[in-house]
C-alpha cells in the first residue's frame, strides 16, 4: 500500500494533474476570499468555507479521473493485479494519495484565516470544525471519484460522471421534497433497494439457493413491516435520498459542532465507495 501511495503522490506532482488541482483550487478560493471577506471587511470565515463547497464539483473530477482509467489504458493494472498485494492495499494507496494532494492544498488555504486574524477576532474552534467537515466531505467525494474511475472506460467519461455524481449529491436535498410520499411508493422503492444488493449477491456468487434464501428473508421483513409498521414507508424515497445528501451534514460542522454521527456518516460513506471499488476490481477478474 505504501509503495502505491508514494508512487501515486509522486506522479501527481510529476505530471501536471497535482499542480493544476492546486492552482485551480487556490485561484478560485483566493478570488472568493478577496471578494467576500477582504474587500467587504467581513470575518465570517465559516460562511466562506460553506460557500466554497461548490468548488468540489470541478476539482474532485480533476483529481480522481485518472486513478484507474490510466492503469487500464496503459495496461499497468496487470502489474498491480499480478503483484503480491491485496486489492484493498491498491485501492487505499490510491485513495490516500489523492487525499494527500487535497490535504496539501487545504493546508495552503489555512493562510486565509491567519491573515484575517491580524485584523479581527476569529472564532477558531468554529473554523477548525469547519475545516474538519470540509476535509471529511472532500474525502467522501474522492471516494466516489475513485469508484467511478474504476468503472468507467476513459478519462473523460470518468471526469464527467464524477462531476454529475457530485452535482447530484448537492441537489438531492432540493429534489427530495418533490418525491412521492405515499406508503405504496415507499414499498415499491424498498423493493428496488433490496433488488440491487440481491442482484450483486447473485452475480458475485452465481448461487441461486443463497440468493433465493436471502430474498425470502428480506421479503418476509418487508411484508411484516407492511402489515405492522406501515407508517415507516411514508416518505421513504425522500428519506433514503437524504442519506446521499453529503453537503447537508456539513451544516453541523460549520456551526462548530463536531457531531459523531456526521463524522461516522462521512467515514462510512467513503469506506462504502472504496469497498465498491475493490468489488469492482475483483469482478473484472471474473468477467
Amino acid at each position, binding site marked *: 500500500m*505504501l*509503495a*502505491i501511495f*508514494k*508512487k501515486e503522490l*509522486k*506522479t501527481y506532482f*510529476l*505530471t501536471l494533474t497535482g499542480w493544476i488541482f492546486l492552482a485551480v483550487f487556490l485561484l478560485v478560493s483566493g478570488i472568493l476570499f478577496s471578494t467576500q471577506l477582504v474587500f467587504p471587511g467581513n470575518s465570517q470565515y465559516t460562511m466562506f468555507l460553506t460557500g466554497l463547497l461548490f468548488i468540489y464539483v470541478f476539482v474532485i473530477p480533476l483529481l480522481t479521473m485518472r486513478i484507474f482509467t490510466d492503469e487500464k489504458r*496503459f*495496461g*499497468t*493494472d*496487470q*502489474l*498491480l*493485479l*499480478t*503483484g*503480491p*498485494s*491485496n486489492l484493498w492495499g491498491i485501492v487505499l494507496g490510491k485513495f490516500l494519495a489523492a487525499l494527500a494532494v487535497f490535504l496539501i492544498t487545504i493546508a495552503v488555504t489555512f493562510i486565509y484565516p491567519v491573515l484575517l486574524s491580524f485584523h479581527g477576532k476569529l472564532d477558531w474552534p468554529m473554523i477548525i470544525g469547519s475545516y474538519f467537515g470540509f476535509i471529511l466531505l472532500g474525502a467522501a467525494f474522492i471516494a466516489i471519484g475513485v469508484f467511478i474511475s474504476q468503472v468507467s472506460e476513459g478519462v473523460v467519461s470518468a471526469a464527467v460522471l464524477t462531476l454529475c455524481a457530485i452535482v447530484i449529491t448537492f441537489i438531492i436535498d432540493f429534489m427530495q421534497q418533490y418525491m412521492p410520499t405515499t406508503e405504496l411508493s415507499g414499498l415499491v422503492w424498498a423493493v428496488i433497494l433490496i433488488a440491487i444488493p440481491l442482484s450483486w449477491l447473485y452475480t458475485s456468487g452465481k448461487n441461486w439457493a443463497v440468493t433465493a434464501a436471502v430474498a425470502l428473508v428480506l421479503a418476509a421483513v418487508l411484508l411484516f413491516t407492511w402489515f405492522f409498521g406501515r407508517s415507516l414507508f411514508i416518505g421513504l424515497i425522500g428519506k433514503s435520498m437524504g442519506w446521499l445528501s453529503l453537503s447537508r451534514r456539513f451544516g453541523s460542522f460549520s456551526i462548530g459542532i463536531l457531531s459523531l454521527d456526521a463524522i461516522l456518516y462521512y467515514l462510512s460513506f467513503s469506506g462504502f465507495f472504496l469497498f465498491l471499488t475493490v468489488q469492482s476490481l475483483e469482478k473484472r*477478474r*471474473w*468477467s
Partner: protein
Amino acid sequence: MIRAVNLSRHFGRIEAVKNIDFHIRKGEIIGFLGPNGAGKSTTMNMITGYLAPSAGRISIDGIDIVDSPEDAKKLIGYMPEHPPLYLDLTVDEYLNFVTEFKKVPKSRRKAGLETIRDLVKIDDVRKRLIKNLSKGYRQRVGLAQALVGNPPLLILDEPTVGLDPKQIIEIRELIRDLGKEHTVVLSSHILPEIQATCHRILIIDKGRIVASDSPENLSGRLSGAFGAARQKLLIKGDAYAVRAALEKIPALGSLSAGKGPEDGLSEAVITAADEGDIREDVFRALAAADLPILQMGPMDLSLEEIFLNLTTDEEEA
C-alpha cells in the same frame, strides 16, 4: 512448478480456453505457440492471477492461485504482452516502485536492481523517462520489472514482439541464461522463435492444447509428414508442358502447376503419394522433357499449415 487442471475461461459466450491440462516442471523453458487469439495470453493471465479461471484450478509450486493469491504471486515474475510501464516515471523510479511494491526486503533491493540492470542492459537509460524510450528499451524495462525480487517462475508473453533482429537474438540469449536458474514460460506465434529457446513446446489452437513435445520431435513430426515428399519448383517452360511431364511420375501424389513470376517460367508444387523422396523422379521427368529446373526446395510450412496438420492429426487419432 505449474499444474493446471481442466482449465477453462470464457468471456461472455466466447470460450477462449477450453478445458486444458498441463504440467510444467521446475527448471523447464516452455513455449506456448499458437496463432493470435488462440488463448495464449488468456492462459498466462490465468497463471498469474490477473484473470480468474471460469473452471479448473492452477497451482504454482503447490499453492493455488485463486485460494492464496498473495503467496502464489510472490513466486511469479510476469511480463504481459504490453509491458506495464508508468510512462511518467524514469526507469530508476519505476524499478524502485516495483521493488517496493513486490515487497523485496530493503537489504536486498539495491544489489538486486543492479544485477537486473546489468542483465537486461538498461544501465545507460536509468535516468531517462520511460515515455522517451524506444520500443526495444521499453521491452527490456518490462523484462526487468518481471525479474524484480528474483522470482523462481517467469511468465513472458511475446517477449520479442516488435524488436529488431539484433535485439531478438539478445533477448533469446537472455532467456536461455535465465532458464538456468528459473522456470520460464514464454509465448509466441512464431515457430523458430520458440524452437531457438525452449525445451518443450505446447501448441495451443482455438483454446485447446493440440500438441506438447520437444522442438526436435515436433519438427521431426512435421517434416516427416512433408519434408522431402513435398517440393516447390521453379521451371523454365510452359505450365502445360510442365504438368504433362510431371504427371508421368509414377509416385505422384498431388500436383499443381501455374504461371511463374516472370514470362516463360512456371511454378509447381508436387507431393509424393507415399511420402517418400520424390526429388530424383522430378529431375528425370523434367530432364526428359527438356524443361530446366531453376529452383527446387522443400515447401516452407506456414504456421497455419502446421496447425492444420496437427489439428487434423489429432482428429484422426
